[in-house]
């Protein structure tokens, strides 16, 4: 997968810059770009449309209130929003206060999400990569990511040894990365 060109890379950065100037139009555009991803992740975790809506609201209000919490050096805004949505959804699932400061969520991902076409391609590639992962690895990864279980809890749930779970999660992430990289032209 190619990186977005310089104009595309700057799109989200420009919108965030406009957010700092309290431009509501910029928020509308960002919402239209990424609300689907955010809502889907929240719904996947919570399995409750009302709760997922609340997480959706919180994530974007967080961005509106504090646009400086994200900058272009953190990579893809869409991927970042997806991870924030997952974190907040897990917090809501476990009825706990947020444990991770959003400023500490730094990630680097090699995909283009800034335009609709790029988002569709990226999402399809991510799904294809995920489908290639062996089921036991995928299950361990999803239990951790979408249910917020620790590796100890996953081991207890699946009856697998702790070491096996740790290895599967790491191997699954490596496999995802490799699969996304293999799609690069």
């Amino acid at each position, binding site marked *: 997968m190619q990186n977005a060109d310089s104009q595309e890379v700057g799109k989200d950065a420009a919108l965030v810059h406009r957010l700092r100037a309290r431009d509501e139009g910029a928020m509308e555009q960002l919402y239209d770009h990424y609300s689907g991803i955010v809502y889907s992740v929240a719904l996947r975790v919570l399995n409750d449309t009302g709760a997922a809506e609340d997480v959706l609201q919180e994530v974007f209000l967080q961005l509106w209130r504090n646009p*400086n919490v994200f900058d272009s050096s953190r990579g893809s805004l869409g991927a970042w929003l997806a*991870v924030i949505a997952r974190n907040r959804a897990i917090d809501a699932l476990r009825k706990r206060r947020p444990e991770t400061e959003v400023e500490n969520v730094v990630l680097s991902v090699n995909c283009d999400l800034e335009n609709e076409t790029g988002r569709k391609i990226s999402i399809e590639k991510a799904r294809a990569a995920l489908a290639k992962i062996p089921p036991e690895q995928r299950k361990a990864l999803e239990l951790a990511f979408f249910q917020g279980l620790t590796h100890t809890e996953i081991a207890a749930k699946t009856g697998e040894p702790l070491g096996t779970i740790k290895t599967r999660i790491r191997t699954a992430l490596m496999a995802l990365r490799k699969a996304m990289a293999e799609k690069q032209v």
Partner: protein
Amino acid sequence: MTENVQPGHEQYAEDLALYAVGALEAGSCAQLEQHLKQCPACLRELEAMRGDAALLALAVSGPAPPQRSRQRLLSAIAAGKEQQPESLRAFAVRRPWWSFAPVFASLLLAIFAILLLRENASLRRTNEQLAAQIIQSDKENHHAREVLALITAKDAMHISLVSAKTPPAPHIKAIYQPSTGRLVLMASNLNPLPAHMTYELWLIPKKGTPMPCGTFKPDAHGMAMMMPENPEIPAWTEFKEFAVTMEPEGGSAAPTSDVLLRGS
């Protein structure tokens, strides 16, 4: 694709993956976080793994959010309810309760210090009161020892005075020590005094005018005791007798009324 874990950091490789997806046990997070502070390579790998995990999120398919959500967000923004300073974070990431332990400890120490100060002030007051009581007790004990010493002195003379009239019979015993000029008086069956009057004891010397020895008043039972602290009778004053008169409040320099009781 190469794994970007530095040689020698293999022990952190699996923990990084767990940490990236939030699956690392809390007890192991602290050690890893400490390592990440000192290892840029592992920190980069963590960011990459978080990016890998983000693909999971991106791969999720689901319905579009309800239209009302968009309007709800924009309404909240337009209403200005969310116009908060940038320094505030919407999700107040609350620190664990134990991070406030130093604050609580400081408050407790301050409260304890205040209580100790108050206790100290109270103890100081009590101490002062006790000291005053000790002084008073010492004074009283000294007085009592003096009375006892006078009463039991071998050279003390015991003089009893009786009423010159028929009963009721006031009775007075005066104990006089010529060597010191000190005396003590013990009385019983005294008649009540009129207002603003007092009984006064006189030493009637063999030569000269009566010498005042002190005033006294009976209690409700007609009893009285007197021992002047600073007797004005010179030592070895030869006397003819002792007498008691009724005088105005505060006593007189010379008898102003008839003798009520006398003895020698």
